């Protein structure tokens, strides 16, 4: 009797040790999961990379128990989404508000869950009901919440600035919300704000050409259109020796100081939600929207180009610095 107890005591831990590490199996029938990815802009690839990396850390190995479909050409979003539905994806990973909104409409009756990687303000844009209770079959990472602080960081870097130029685009329903925050932040900081609507490249060029002479800095709000045309904005800012700030996290793409998301990190955060949906079988609607982490990024090359010296105290607090 004692020996059988010893056998059990030895065997059970041994079996546990020998049991394979958890690699989440896909469907009950052993078929790998299929996840669709819609990334509208190549500049957002880091989000996808972060998402895949996160998924791998949760045991979803690409080619083994999960496969991804990510079309390069997403000009026609509708047909891309339609294709995803036809291929019966188990989950759709979307980036940006407009793409997510369209996906939500298309996938309404399909039962396919959506996890979005970076939507500025999903509540304001009508993508979700509320942050804690998204509703529908959708959840994801919102990237709003850093605008006010990003504005403050710009002013900390350029304390003498009193006149801030803000181009904006109506490509997202969130623009009103952003402008509202910026106006309040300007008021708190005792600075003046000049906004300019730029929905097309031409309008942007025209607006940049018309930046008032007394402008001390440019603040780039979160907008897919503006990010797509960031080079134009940066070029003008450097020419005009205007410091740039943003809540987009686009410091690598030339903005002097940013306080916002890190794409890779946002993607990684989204992977946890996807894991909960695919493995834990938690309905997407039961997973509250999470807010991305905000990072302080400084592009010293841009600062140098416009002749700005970033104080050491700020540099000390920066998460990322492009030298």
């Amino acid at each position, binding site marked *: *009797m004692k020996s*059988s*107890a010893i056998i*059990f*005591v030895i065997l*059970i*831990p041994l079996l*546990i040790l020998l049991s394979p590490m*958890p690699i989440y199996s896909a469907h009950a029938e052993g078929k790998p999961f299929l996840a669709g990815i819609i990334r509208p802009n190549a500049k957002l690839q880091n989000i996808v990379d972060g998402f895949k990396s996160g998924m791998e850390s*949760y045991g979803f190995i690409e080619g083994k128990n999960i496969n991804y479909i990510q079309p390069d050409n997403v000009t026609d979003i509708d047909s891309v989404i339609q294709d995803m539905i036809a291929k019966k994806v188990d989950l759709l990973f979307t980036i940006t508000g407009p793409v997510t909104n369209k996906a939500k409409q298309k996938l309404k009756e399909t039962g396919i869950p959506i996890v979005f990687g970076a939507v500025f303000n999903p509540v304001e844009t009508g993508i979700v009901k509320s*942050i*804690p*209770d998204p509703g529908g079959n959708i959840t994801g990472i919102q990237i709003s*919440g*850093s605008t*006010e*602080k990003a*504005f*403050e960081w710009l002013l900390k870097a350029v304390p003498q600035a009193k006149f801030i130029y803000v181009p904006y685009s109506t490509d997202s329903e969130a623009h009103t919300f952003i402008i509202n925050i910026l106006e309040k*932040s300007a008021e*708190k*900081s005792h600075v003046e704000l000049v906004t300019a609507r730029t929905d097309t490249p031409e309008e942007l060029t025209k607006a940049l050409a018309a930046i008032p002479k007394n402008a001390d800095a440019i603040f780039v709000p979160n907008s897919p259109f503006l990010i797509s045309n960031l080079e134009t904005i940066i070029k003008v800012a450097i020419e005009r020796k205007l410091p740039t700030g943003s809540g987009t996290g686009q410091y690598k793409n030339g903005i002097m100081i940013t306080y916002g998301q*890190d794409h890779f*990190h946002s993607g990684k955060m989204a992977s*946890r939600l996807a*894991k*909960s949906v695919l493995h*834990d079988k*938690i309905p997407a609607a*039961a*997973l*509250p*929207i*999470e*807010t991305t*982490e*905000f*990072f*302080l990024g400084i592009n010293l090359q841009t600062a140098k180009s416009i002749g700005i010296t970033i104080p050491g*105290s700020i540099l*000390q*607090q*920066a*998460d990322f610095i492009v030298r």
Partner: protein
Amino acid sequence: MKIKGSIRRRLVISLVLLAIIPLLLLGTLLSWQSFVIQQRQIIELQREKALRVLNQIGSIIHKQEELLSNALTIDYYILDIGSEKQGRFLSQMLSFSDESRVSIFNEIALLDSRGQELARESRTSIITPKDLRNRSNAEEFTVPLSKRQTYYGPVYIDDKTGAPFMLMSIPVIDTRNDIVKGVLTAEMRMKFMWDIVDRINVGESGVVYVVDRTGRVIVHPNPSVVLKGEHFDIENKSGISTGLDGSKAVLTNDILSLGTQRLHVMTEIPLVTALKSTYTSLLTIAVFLVLTLTGSVVLGFITVRQIIRPVESLAETALAISSGDIDRKAVVIRNDELGALSESFNIMTSRLAETITSLKNQITEREKAERALSESLREKEVLLKEIHHRVKNNMQVISSLLNLQARQISDKQYIELFNESRNRIASMALVHEKLYNSKDLTNIDFKDYINCLANELFSFYGISPKKILLKISSENIRLPIDTAIPCGLIINELVSNSLKYAFPEGKNGEINIILDKTSADDNDNFYNLTVSDNGIGIPGDLDIRRLKSLGLQLVITLVEHQLKGGMQLDRSKGTLFDIHFKELKYKSRI
């Protein structure tokens, strides 16, 4: 003969008692022990995971506390440096992040000794001097100020984001004079707990979650559980108990103490899932047991059959033999002890058959001999009867010859002598007649004999029994011929005397003959014979021993010499001869 008991049944019962029951008991015990061990191991494994979670959470929180404390140790004079520098200090602290570059603090504030915020920095908002507030009544201020120790607030969920936060405050102590000059309070981001519990796998369907001291679930892999504000009664929640969803589960409950706060790190696996491997083990044991039992039963029955079949065959053969079928043979199919027993049995029955045949032959022989003996005996009996018959006939012939002879004599005296002789011969012939008519050729019924003899004498002398009454009294006495003949002669003589002389001139009277067996010992029978009459009697002066009469001399001679007895004469009332004698033993004459 009917077999009442059954060896098969006894063996089966023995098999059940000795093999099956212990096996069942052993199996049950083994299963129970396996169940207990596996349950304990499941709980230990769960606890290990819970402790891992607990340690990770505790470690991060203490690191955060350490960050705050270290910062203050360096800048203990922070309360004196002015709001601008204080703001920068807080801003720098706000930029602290963990290994994943995730900000640790959401908001951080510096309070003076009155609870007034001197500076505050937020991760998401611009804080202006107008936004600074007085927190003198808040626990995050009063506890570190009064107790000089770190304050941990309850974990709370932000309604807007659903993210968990916790306030932590530490006293700002001026190391120069050890006075608490203010409080540094930070709103800590606790979302790291989500990642921790999310990365812990507790079996296939188990979860790790964290419950605060009020029972509110603050971290759960399914955030909707947290957002719904579910409460869980954590009292006695360990081992097999009711889980979060109300179903039975295996739970562990480990506590992380943070000041007055208690974070319960719970692990929960649905009971059915948790005991899946246990059930599998139990099933394996059960299958093993069933197979072993089946094997034992089959083996047992085969063994029983192998033992019982020859025994039953032997029993059947024995029954058949006992019923008379002596030629029945036991079937010998094996070379073991039972085979040897069957062989021995067959040898035994063969010998028995031989013995029986021999006995039968002996019996037949004996029966034949008995029959021959019986035949011989019968022949001898016939012969003896014939001899007695011939003796009697010869005596009758002698009597007839004497009668014929007597007819040629005219002298009455001589005629009487002839007649007396004839009566004597008749009395002897009567003995032989009685002998050959009797089944017993050695003894005669002497009462019957006396009766016949007396009647013949009455008849011979022509005396009516009505005139002289004859009374014979005797037991059923059988006498052998050696005794019967002298006795008969004695009675013949005495009764003849009474008939001739006791009742002269046709006088009426009575003759009594009494024969009794007086005594007997181991060897001899003693008799008493009384022959009496109430006649005139023998004159008193007449000495019977000196009489020339042959009759009485014969009586005396027969009594004293042949029967070796004695005789008295009583003349008081008629004549009474009282004779006693013992039965003569037969003497082999050949």
